[in-house]
C-alpha cells in the first residue's frame, strides 16, 4: 500500500501540526495574584466564593449582571463580574473555576464552572451536613 502509506504519513504530520498549534491556543491555570499580573490575558482561576461579601445580582433590573467576590486557596481576594445569569448553584458550590480576564481591578468572567460538593466528593457526606440524611438531635441527654 504505497499511496495509502504516503497519505497516512501526511495525515500523521498534519495531526502533529494541529495538536502543536492547539497547544499554542491553550490558556493557563492561575491564582488571583498571577492573574492580576497579566491583565487582558485569558486565564483560568480556581477560587471559592467569598461568602462574607454579598452576591450582587438583581434579575429584575439586569439579569445579565453578576458581581461577587472570590478567594483563592492562597487567600487572595478579587471582585468578579459576569455578564450572564447567576450560575444555578453558585451559593452551594465549594469551588469555582473562573474563566476570563483581569482588567481594571475586576476579573471579567466569561464562564463560571461550579463544583458542587455533593457531586464530587464523598467526604462531604462524612460530616452528614446533607439535609435529609440524619436528623441530629438538638438537645444533649
Amino acid at each position, binding site marked *: *500500500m*504505497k*499511496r*495509502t502509506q504516503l*497519505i*497516512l504519513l501526511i*495525515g*500523521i504530520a*498534519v*495531526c502533529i501540526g*494541529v*495538536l502543536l498549534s*492547539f*497547544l499554542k*491556543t*491553550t*490558556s*493557563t*491555570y492561575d491564582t488571583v495574584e498571577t492573574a492580576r499580573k497579566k491583565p487582558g490575558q*485569558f486565564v*483560568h482561576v*480556581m477560587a471559592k466564593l467569598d461568602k462574607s461579601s454579598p452576591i450582587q*445580582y*438583581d*434579575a*429584575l*433590573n*439586569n*439579569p*445579565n*449582571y453578576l458581581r461577587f467576590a472570590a478567594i483563592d486557596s492562597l487567600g487572595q481576594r478579587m471582585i468578579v463580574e459576569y*455578564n*450572564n*445569569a*447567576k450560575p*444555578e*448553584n*453558585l*451559593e*452551594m458550590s465549594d469551588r469555582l*473555576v473562573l*474563566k*476570563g*480576564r483581569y482588567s481594571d481591578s475586576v476579573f471579567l468572567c*466569561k464562564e463560571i*464552572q461550579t463544583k458542587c460538593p*455533593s*457531586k464530587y466528593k*464523598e467526604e462531604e*457526606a*462524612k460530616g*452528614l451536613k*446533607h*439535609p*435529609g*440524611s*440524619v*436528623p441530629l*438531635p438538638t438537645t*444533649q441527654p
Partner: protein
Amino acid sequence: MYIGELSWPGQLGHLAAILSLVASALACFAYAQTVRSNELTLRASWQRIARVGFYLQTISVFTIFFLLLYLIHNHRFEYHYVWKHSSKSLEFKYLLASIWEGQEGSFLLWLLAQGVLGLLLIRTAKGWEAPVMSIVSFAQFCLSTMIIGLSILGWKLGSSPFLLLRDSGVLDGAPALHIDFDASQPLIPNYLEKIQDGNDLNPLLQNYWMVIHPPVLFLGFASTLIPFAFAMGGVITRRYTDWVKPVQPWALFSTAVLGVGIMMGGMWAYESLTFGGYWAWDPVENASLVPWLIGVAGLHTLLIYRHSGQALRSTIVFFVLGFGFILYSTFLTRSGILGETSVHAFTGEGMNLQLLALIAVFMIPSAWFLIRRHREIPQIQTEENISAREFWMYIGSLLFFLSAILIIGQTSLPVFNKIFGTTIAPPEDVEFSYNSVQIYIAIMLALLTGFTYYLKYKQTGMDLFWKRISIPLLITLLLGIGFAWYIGIRYDQKGLGFQTALWIAAICSIFSLIANASYIWIGIKGNLAKSGGAIAHVGFALTLLAIVVTSSNKQVISENNTGFLTPLGKGENPRQNLTLVKDIPSEMGRYKVTYEQDSVHPKKKLWYYKVRFKSNDGKEEFVLYPNAFVNYKGQQGLMANPDAKHYWDHDVFTYVTSLPDPDKKEDTTRFTSKTVMPGDTTFYSKGFITFGQPNLIDSLPVELFGEGGQVVELPVSIHRRTGETATVTLKAAWAKKQWLPLPDTMQAEGMIMQLEEQKKDGSLVVGIKESDTLLKYVTLKAFHYPYIQFLWFGIWLTAAGLLISMRRRMQQWLQANRT
C-alpha cells in the same frame, strides 16, 4: 447487634460477586483449554465447562443487579450505595437510574451488557466461540474485580455496591449515632431508625434520559469488546483471516448501538441540561465518541479486506484501538483526572491504579502479539488504483481515525498535565478549538461518502462513473441553490474563512445525502436488504448537514432590551437572559412571552413555570413549562430543566436561569420621598414617571371625613423604557385632620407609590418604593434551534442502515455454517 438491618441481600450479593469472579475465571481458562486441545472429545468437554462457567457468571451478575434493585426499591439505607444514590421520594423509574448513578452500578450495567452479548456469541459464533469467548470471559473477570470490594494486603480492589453504610465511614463523623455521643465509640444499636431518608439521586439526573441513555451507552461500550475479541482471537490462534466474516455483524451492531447511545446523551443534554446544546466537546462526550469513530474506520477497512484482500492489519489495529479507547475513556471519566475540564466527570473513587491496570492488561498483550506476529498477517503488495473504491474507502477510514486521534489528543490535556507536571488549561473557546479542525474532516468525509459508492472495487471505468454520478450532482446543484436561498449559513463570528468552511461542509453533506439516496436506486435497484450501507450513509450525511446548519443558525431569542446596558467585554455576547414579570408580556424574538403561573410537583420541590409564547403575527401560540428544583433539600440555588416546543423544522427552547429567592419574603425596602410639581418627571429603575395635575374633591360626607375633609387625586403616568405606558391615580384623603395616603401597588413595575403630602406652594411629596419581593418573576434564556429534528433523525437512520446490514451479514454467516 444492630436493630433493623437486613443483612441477607448483602451477604448474597457479596457471594454473587465472588461467584462472578470465579466463574468468569473458570470460563476464561476452560475456553483457553478448548482452543489449545487438539482432541475432539476433550475440546467438547472443556467447552461444556466453559459454557457452564459463563452461564454461572451471567446469572451472578443478574443476581447482583436484582438484589440491588430490591434494596433500592425497599429503601434499605443500611446499604451505603442505596443511601447515597436514592431516596424515598423517587419514582420507580428513577430507582433504576439510581442503580447506575454510581461507579459500581455502572460497572454492573457494563457487566450485564457484556454477559448478554456473550450469551448471544455462544449461540452464533460457531467455530469462533472458544477464542472469542475466552477473551470475553477475561473481560468479565476484569470488570468483576471492579465491583468485588476486597481489601488485599492494604490494596483496595474494586468497590462493592453492598458496602454497609456503617462500614463506609459516612457515619464516623456523626456523634449522635454513637454510644455516649462519642464518635470514637461504636454505633448505637438502633442507629438505623435515625436514618430516615437517603442522599437521593442528583436532581439533574432525575430525568427519563437517565433511565434509558446509560443502558444503551453501556451496551455500546460492551459491544466494542467483540470486534476486539475476534481480531485478537484471530491473531492469538493464528487464524488470521477467517474471523472477518463472523465479526462483521458485530462490528455493525457495535457502531449502531454506540452511536445511538452517544446520541441519546446528546438528546439528554439538549432536552434536560442547560448548556443550550447537544454537544459541547466535553471530555466525557469525546471519550465515548472516539471509540465510535475508530469503530467506523474498522468497519470500512474490514469491507476493503473482504473485497480486495487489503487493509487486514489496519482492521485489526482499529478494532484493538476501538476497545482500547473505551478502556481509556473509562479511565478518563472515572479517575477524576478530568477534574476542572469537564462539567460532568465522575468522582475518583480511589481506583485509579485499577483503572490503569484495566487498560494495561488488555493493551500490552495485544501490542506484544501484534508486534511479534504482524509479519504473519497476510497482505497484498500492490500499488492501489485510484479509481478503485477501496482506495477512497481507505482514505475515509484514515480520516475517521485521524479525527479520533485529534479529538482524544486535545481531550487528554489533563493527562498531559499530570504526566509532565504542567498546568496548561483548555483554550478560551474550547468548542471552536475542536470545530475549527473537525469541520475540514467533515467536508472530506462528506465528499468521500458521496462519490465512493459510484466507484467499483479494483477498478472503475470513468465513463460509467461520470454517467452515473451526473444525476446526483445535478440534483445537488439545484438543492444547493435552494439551500443558499432559503436557509444559508449565518454564523460569522469566527470570520469569513470558517463561515466558508461551514458553507462547503453543508453543500458537501447535501451532495453525500443525494448521492447515497440515489445510489439505492442507481446501484442497488432499490433492494432494501442490500441498501443498509447506503441508508447509513444517507443518515450520516443528514446528521452532518443538521450539525452544521443547527449550530450555525442557532439563535438566542431572549436578548434583553429592558435592563441596564452593561459594557460588554471584547467579543462577548451577553445579555442573553430576559426577566419576565408575572402577567406582563415581553418581547422575545418574534414572540410576546408571558409568564402566567407556577405550580409545584406534589412530592418534590420541583417548580413548573407556565410561560406562554404568542407570535407577533398572532398565528402561533404555545405554552412551555420550563421547570427547576428550587433550594432542593435545603441546598441554596436552583437546578433547571428546559422545555421545548418542537416543530418539524425548528425548536423553541427555553430554561429558567434565575428566580426570586422564595425564602426571602420580608420586604425591607423603604419609601423614598420625592417632592415634585405637577407636570414634573422623575426616573425610576425601569423608566420615568410623569405627574399630572392634582384633582381636589371636597364635597365629602362630614360623618366620614370630618370638617373640611378632602380627597386628592393625582394622575400619574408611568413610562417604561420599552415604550409602554401605564396610568394610575394616586389617592390620599385629608380626613378628621389626618392625612391618609392610599398606597398603590404596581405589580409590573415592582413599585409602590403613595401621595405623602400636598404642600401649600402646590408641590407634592410622593413616596416611591421599588422592591423585588413584590414581584413574581422568572428569568429565562431561550433559543431558536432550526432543524434539530433532522439531527436525531439522521442518527436513527444511520443506526437503522447499520442494523439492516448487520441482519444481512449475520444471516450470511449462519447460513454458511449450516451447510
